[in-house]
């Protein structure tokens, strides 16, 4: 099997790289794919927490490259899907513990029996970022409708191009239709005009994300959540389906009323 390696990156921190990685990975596994999530944020690992797998970690990625264990020993099998694995980052080391070359080797080894390898990149453009993109075939950039996040995304696209990773795609995260309508938030067209790359998904702002992150259950597992639906659609687009974008829905009058009186 020759798996595809996809790096999830953004430049700016806090835009939803880890949440996106966890959810895309989970949604791909739902469709029966064999998926390995790699947390490349060595020293600040989070992906294990978001996946709810923190208490199963014995070995990590640094143990693998330093030959303290075999690759299979460090890979944690997800508790929900058999085909989903996590290769966690080390928490007590830093980004220089792994080199881009080692990363490339690791991914080449994983590709043999995975359909998809999702690499969760750290924020920034330094060594951690370089490690994360080392073995990638494809890049997905996460951004939010903020001028600073878009600026950083633009910078990242330039850096990816310089590394030969052409045609990255973008996820616009945390968008709020009501604010866009009022002109208080950048619209999708404004962002695509600057970035000039393909849009692979729009994820609406959803309070459920906070809850699911804290519980260690990716929101893609939740049938009712809008954000979960958005991530499941992104996974299907990654698999090659041509799905139309979900229209941005505004809260109905009743939901707004419920929010107002604190019921929802």
């Amino acid at each position, binding site marked *: 099997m020759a798996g595809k390696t996809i790096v999830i990156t953004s430049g700016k921190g806090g835009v939803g790289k880890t949440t996106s990685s966890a959810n895309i990975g989970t949604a791909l596994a739902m469709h029966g794919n064999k998926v390995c999530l790699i947390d490349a944020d060595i020293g600040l690992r989070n992906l294990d927490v978001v996946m709810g797998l923190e208490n199963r970690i014995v070995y990590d990625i640094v143990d693998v490259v330093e030959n303290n264990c075999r690759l299979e020993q460090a890979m944690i099998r997800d508790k929900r899907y058999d085909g989903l694995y996590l290769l966690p980052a080390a928490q007590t080391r830093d980004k220089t513990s792994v080199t881009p070359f080692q990363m490339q080797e690791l991914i080449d080894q994983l590709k043999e029996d995975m359909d998809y390898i999702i690499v969760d990149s750290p924020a920034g453009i330094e060594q951690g970022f370089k490690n994360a993109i080392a073995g990638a075939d494809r890049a997905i950039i996460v951004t939010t409708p903020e001028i600073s996040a878009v*600026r950083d995304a*633009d910078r990242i696209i*330039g850096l990816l191009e310089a590394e030969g990773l052409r045609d990255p795609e973008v996820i616009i995260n945390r968008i709020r239709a009501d604010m866009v309508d009022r002109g208080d938030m950048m619209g999708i067209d404004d962002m695509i005009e*600057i970035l000039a790359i393909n849009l692979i998904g729009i994820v609406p702002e959803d309070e459920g994300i906070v809850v699911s992150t804290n519980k260690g259950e990716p929101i893609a597992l939740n049938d009712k959540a809008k954000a979960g639906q958005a991530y499941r659609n992104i996974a299907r687009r990654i698999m090659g389906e041509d799905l139309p974008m979900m229209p941005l829905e505004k809260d109905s009058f009743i939901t707004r009323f419920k929010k107002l009186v604190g019921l929802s």
Partner: protein
Amino acid sequence: MASVFSFQAVSDGVVMNFRDGSTFGSIKKAVTLHAAEASDFFTGINLYLNLSGLELAYEQLEELMQIVKNYNQVNKIYFTAKKIEIEEKMTESTSEAVIINRTLRSGQRVKHQANVVIVGDVNPGAEVIAGGDIIVFGRLKGVVHAGAGGSKEAQVAALKLDPTQLRIASLIARSPDDIDSSKLQAERAFIENDQIIVEKI
């Protein structure tokens, strides 16, 4: 004061031409000022001092060399005495333009001694620095500096002129805050009466 000296781009550097009959005092003053302003524009390129039309004493020449060394990290300094016929227009007519066939993104920087043509956008956070003109076949939203060697003849043109900052020679301008960013309207900027003027094309 503007025309005590001028620059002309050649394949491996720039030629510094002085106006016929300039006094050493005025040359010294203008070059000292320019060297301080040019920052690192001349990094790694050769500088040819064209002494044609000048009469300098040995000590004055030595002093001029000291001032010219203030151009940061200039590669080599040569002397020449070519006769220059049309002084000002030289930069435009003899220099070659570099053509960039892609969009410049945040953090990317293009620097060239002569003209720069970009077929694509210049996004916010990107920088273009040219000794001559800058032409953008796309949206210009980043920082541009035309005539960075001091040429006030330089101009900037774009299909959408909305730069973060626009510099020509030693003048700086920025876009008005209330610019209508949606529609494309080709514009060019140039210097007139020591002011940057923008007009529709």
